[in-house]
């Protein structure tokens, strides 16, 4: 079998829509096209039914009540809604919010906005392995804390946080707990009750559904979470998010969620086997390869590695037959190294040398073998060209060199 090039290995950026998902969506564009808010005819009723089915399938993945699923345009909107909505509603209770320095920009930038509204925000620096612990959250808490927002799994390094412990802590302190579940939903077991989650952002396009649709889980009881809307209008979604529902998108989201749930365990094993073999090949064939993030507490499809003495962008240029990211896709337009790796204390040097390989549902062993071989070849070629590698081989301590900064 010949490989289709370039090989897609950026599944944490986005995923292709599964053909089974697309098939289920199609009738909702042309035949069952009604507005789910139309109460007076069957077009509307059918659309509403489709939305309700989608809601139920999504809720099932995380043990939620379907009424707790609020549809949005994607996880960025959900994150904005959670942070700003909670802040607005609970501002009289307190004005302190806790998050981490390696959250997605949708959370970090929302938190920064809240600072301009007069809130205090603590950005926890994660451990060196990328994890944010309950203890760190506890130490950051004050009497003023109203919300903790810590991601389920990180998009760059794939590290899975101890969500249940953080959730339990928050519940015991009567502080709301939001988690950006975009990378974890459908991939690792999550339960909003067992994990004490009050709000959770999720997205369809990371789980083989369509782009442009996401959701925010909002707890209805014990405690009932109230959210001020950030988009006003017709009062859809219990008044929390107005706007005509994206019916076909929601149908696809629901189907995608169901498919993930059905194959979660099996797929996780398949991906981690491929990923671990990939990692082993890199480690055996190259000296000084660093895995960024916790070795085992990470998404099965994620491998983030630094190849010291090789700059990431030139490495990606050499890997032209492979679609991968250096740092996060959201910030790779800038020349700054990954803020996630920097916050983990990796140092700019290693951050500049990092590549994220993202494996997913349609990744084959043959593709992984090809990419591993290519990577080794390009890293070796780049190191032959690297003055840093040469200096280290000559015994120079790079940290002692007085570099001319530009």
């Amino acid at each position, binding site marked *: 079998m010949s490989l289709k090039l370039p090989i897609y290995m950026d599944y944490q950026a986005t995923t292709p829509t599964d053909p089974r998902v697309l098939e289920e969506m199609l009738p909702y564009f042309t035949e069952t096209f009604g507005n789910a808010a139309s109460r007076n005819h069957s077009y509307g009723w059918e659309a509403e039914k489709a939305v309700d089915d989608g809601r139920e399938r999504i809720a099932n993945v995380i043990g939620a009540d379907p009424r707790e699923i609020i549809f949005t345009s994607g996880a960025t909107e959900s994150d904005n809604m959670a942070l700003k909505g909670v802040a607005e509603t609970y501002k009289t209770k307190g004005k302190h919010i806790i998050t981490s320095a390696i959250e997605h920009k949708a959370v970090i930038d929302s938190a920064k906005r809240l600072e301009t509204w007069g809130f205090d925000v603590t950005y926890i620096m994660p451990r060196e392995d990328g994890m944010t612990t309950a203890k760190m959250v506890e130490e950051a808490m004050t009497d003023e804390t109203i919300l903790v927002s810590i991601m389920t799994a990180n998009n760059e390094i794939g590290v899975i946080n101890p969500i249940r412990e953080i959730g339990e802590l928050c519940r015991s302190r009567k502080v709301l707990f939001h988690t950006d579940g975009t990378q974890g939903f459908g991939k690792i077991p999550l339960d909003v009750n067992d994990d004490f989650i009050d709000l959770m952002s999720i997205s369809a396009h990371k789980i083989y559904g369509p782009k442009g649709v996401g959701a925010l889980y909002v707890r209805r009881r014990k405690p009932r979470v109230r959210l001020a809307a950030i988009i006003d209008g017709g009062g859809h979604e219990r008044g929390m998010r107005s706007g005509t529902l994206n019916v076909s998108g929601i149908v696809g989201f629901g189907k995608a969620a169901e498919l993930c749930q059905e194959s979660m365990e099996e797929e996780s094993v398949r991906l981690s086997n491929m990923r671990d073999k990939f990692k082993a090949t890199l480690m055996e064939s190259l000296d000084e390869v660093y895995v960024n993030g916790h070795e085992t507490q990470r998404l099965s499809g994620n491998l983030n590695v630094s190849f010291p*003495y090789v700059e990431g962008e030139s490495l990606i240029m050499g890997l032209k037959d492979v679609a991968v990211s250096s740092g996060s896709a959201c910030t790779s337009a800038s020349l700054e190294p990954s803020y996630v790796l920097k916050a983990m204390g990796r140092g700019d040097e290693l951050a500049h040398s990092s590549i994220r390989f993202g494996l997913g549902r349609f990744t084959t062993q043959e593709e992984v073998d090809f990419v591993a071989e290519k990577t080794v070849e390009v890293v070796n070629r780049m190191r032959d060209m690297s003055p840093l590698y*040469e200096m280290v081989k000559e015994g120079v301590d790079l940290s002692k060199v007085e*570099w001319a900064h530009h």
Partner: protein
Amino acid sequence: MAYSEKVVDHYNNPRNVGSLDKNADAVGTGIVGAPECGDVMKLQVKVSGDGVIEDAKFKTFGCGSAIASSSLATEWLKGKTVDEAQEIKNTEIVEELNLPPVKIHCSVLAEDAIKAALNDYREKQGIPSVGDSRSAV
């Protein structure tokens, strides 16, 4: 980001990769940039008795444009006198490689590497330095 054809060509077929004996009196070495900035260039020239650059080599840690800028610099250096080499401008590199604005710093670094290498050579020969370009090592 889309690279120009010339950048891709230099990246795929870099000219004059390698090292010259940095302890030789006829060799000038310029190492500029910093690892934490994502760019380090090492550029070396070997100057003949009559002041002509007879060989040039480079090694670069950096993006494709940085590699191309230094590769191109070595091509241009060969056959020039030390004084002629001093006149190479980063803008000429930008033009030749069609570098986009975000990559202009790569050409600046290459110019700096040339000047640092020439100053290192001058120092070994007991000739006064020109400008303040200095090699890190």
